[in-house]
């Protein structure tokens, strides 16, 4: 570095000391930047961690709620299925019963012939 207009010419020692001071100040700047940068990064990581922890908590809660809901729905489905099967069973039984009754109530062929003959004779 040259202190162009203010440095007395030939004063090499002064110039050397100035350069040394400048170097130290420069190193100070670089170190300070690293300190601030690390501090910022730690802050940013902590914020990220806090956010992720909150997201994790929220997702866990959501997952638990969803799992409970799925279980409940599965139970409801099983109950419905059971009710449905029972109902089908009941209805089939009833159909069979009615078919039997129908068969029992149906008029026999000889009786229908007799009725027909009687009608014509009138």
């Amino acid at each position, binding site marked *: *570095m*040259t*202190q*162009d*207009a*203010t440095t007395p010419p030939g004063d090499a020692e002064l110039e050397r000391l100035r350069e040394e001071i*400048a170097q130290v*100040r*420069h190193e*100070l*700047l*670089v*170190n*300070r*930047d*690293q*300190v*601030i*940068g690390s*501090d*910022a*990064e730690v802050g*940013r990581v902590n*914020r*990220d961690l806090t956010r992720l922890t909150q997201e994790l908590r929220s997702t866990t809660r959501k997952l638990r709620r969803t799992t409970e809901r799925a279980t409940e729905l599965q139970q409801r489905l099983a109950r419905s299925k059971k009710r449905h099967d029972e109902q089908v069973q009941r209805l089939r039984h009833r159909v069979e019963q009615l078919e039997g009754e129908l068969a029992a109530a149906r008029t026999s062929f000889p009786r229908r012939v007799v009725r027909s003959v009687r009608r014509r004779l009138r």
Partner: protein
Amino acid sequence: MTPSRTGRDDGPPLFSIITPVFDPPVDVLEETIASVLAQEHRDWEWILVDDASTDPTVVATITRHMLGDPRIRLLERDVNGHIVAASNDGIAAARGEFVVLLDHDDLLTPDALAVNARLIDEHDDVDYLYSDEDKVDARGRTYGRFTKPDWSPERLRGQMYTSHLSVVRTSLVREVGAFREGYDGSQDHDLALRIGEVARRVVHIPEVLYHWRAVAGSTSAAIDAKPYATVAGQRAVQDHLDRTGVAARVDQGAEPGRYVIQRELDPGIRVSVVIPTLGQDAIVFGQRRVMVVEAVRSLLARTAHPDVEVVVVHDTPTPAAVLDELREVAGDRLVLVPYDKPFNYSEKMNLGAVAASGERLVLLNDDVEVISERWLENLVAPLDDPRVGMTGAKLYFDDSTVQHACHAYWGSHYRHPFRFWTRDEPGPFGELVVNREVSGVTAACAAMTRETYFEVGGFTETLPSNFNDVDLCYKVRHVGRSIVWVANCELFHFESRTREGRAEAWERYAVVRRWGIPEDDAFTPSAVASPMIDPHRILRERIREADPGVRAPAAAPQP
């Protein structure tokens, strides 16, 4: 229903809504009343101060509602005293912890008080809250949303931006003397400035809680509807500067309601302007020039400050003739610092700062030309306020369109809002003509105190070319200082318009690693900052790049 209490112990606060009334159209007043009665938050009292209305139906309307809701109170003035006297009567009668300022023809959103109550609950020390606002026309349609910045005391000097809805701690309003006579039309600006001086915490609510009715003759419809108001506003800002010990003069701004702060810089303060250069030349306004020489010439010509040091950090290939010319222009104010390493802008600036002897540092590119008089005073003097860590300037391309009017960090990117607006445009809400707090400024022209520069470690040398100024701005805010963009410090910046695209992904990642991904900007919100890019201009640039033989667009004449 009656208000449950006069103050707050643990429960929600009691709000005193203050409304001076003078001859509003009754149907409009009814709408205002309906908007208050619809509040979700129930703890309020409403003091309507009739300022001797000539229309008897006004008082009759208020009385009818008063009989239906005991929270409504009517004060009747015998003589018309105008808005200041009427508002002060209301404030004197207020029993709530916070006063809410509502005009007789405007509308609150149903959640207005509830949102304020929630934020008051979150911050025990809050003294002043303001929200975003929009306008409502005669047909009830809302438009013109003003998305406001977070608390910006410097911007408040340039314009009354907090406006509606303003909610202030009652004890503080009384402590500062409420509204002052003689500031009619800008009485709210005057009050906000005085409140801002003493408030412990000011909170911005980024939600529209207030619809400002645009009727002929009102300030919401046209900012120049009340010319007397801008004169009162100028006086209010000048009073504020005098009270707070800021050596400055207030001028009227580019449009009514905007104010320019012309600052004084202590002549005893040495300012070091640090400029990195390779001594290159280029054609500007049709003439070849050595960039750094003209930058130095213009910076010295346009300041009256007596103690300016110019520190030029030059790469060793810089021609000797350029250095000679610099010595001629700057004389004994010049300090030359040679640099013989591979290009690293950050390191060059740090070496310049180390060599500088001034208490204030101005960081300046060599491809600039100062346009405005007293640029240095206006740029550097805001740093007298210890809360301010950095200032930046308004830069133009060679055709006088805006190149830089602050940085805004949002939507995962670092941006230059208002690019390509013209020099005479004020911006969506005065952003281009008033000083204001911002998230960052370009280091092409910026100022810092030496103390702050060293406290934050200057530029990070891990970023040799791009985003080092973004990182620097983050650092300044990290140590608790604000950044102010100065509208009346103007320079040409003869930068390539397309240079920004050359940033590498790792450079951006280096900033993100330290500071995270930017989401929305606190001072220049994305709703305001969205770049208004003229596609024809971009196309013109691309054509010029693809075929340099095509006639270049005409440059603006030198001012």
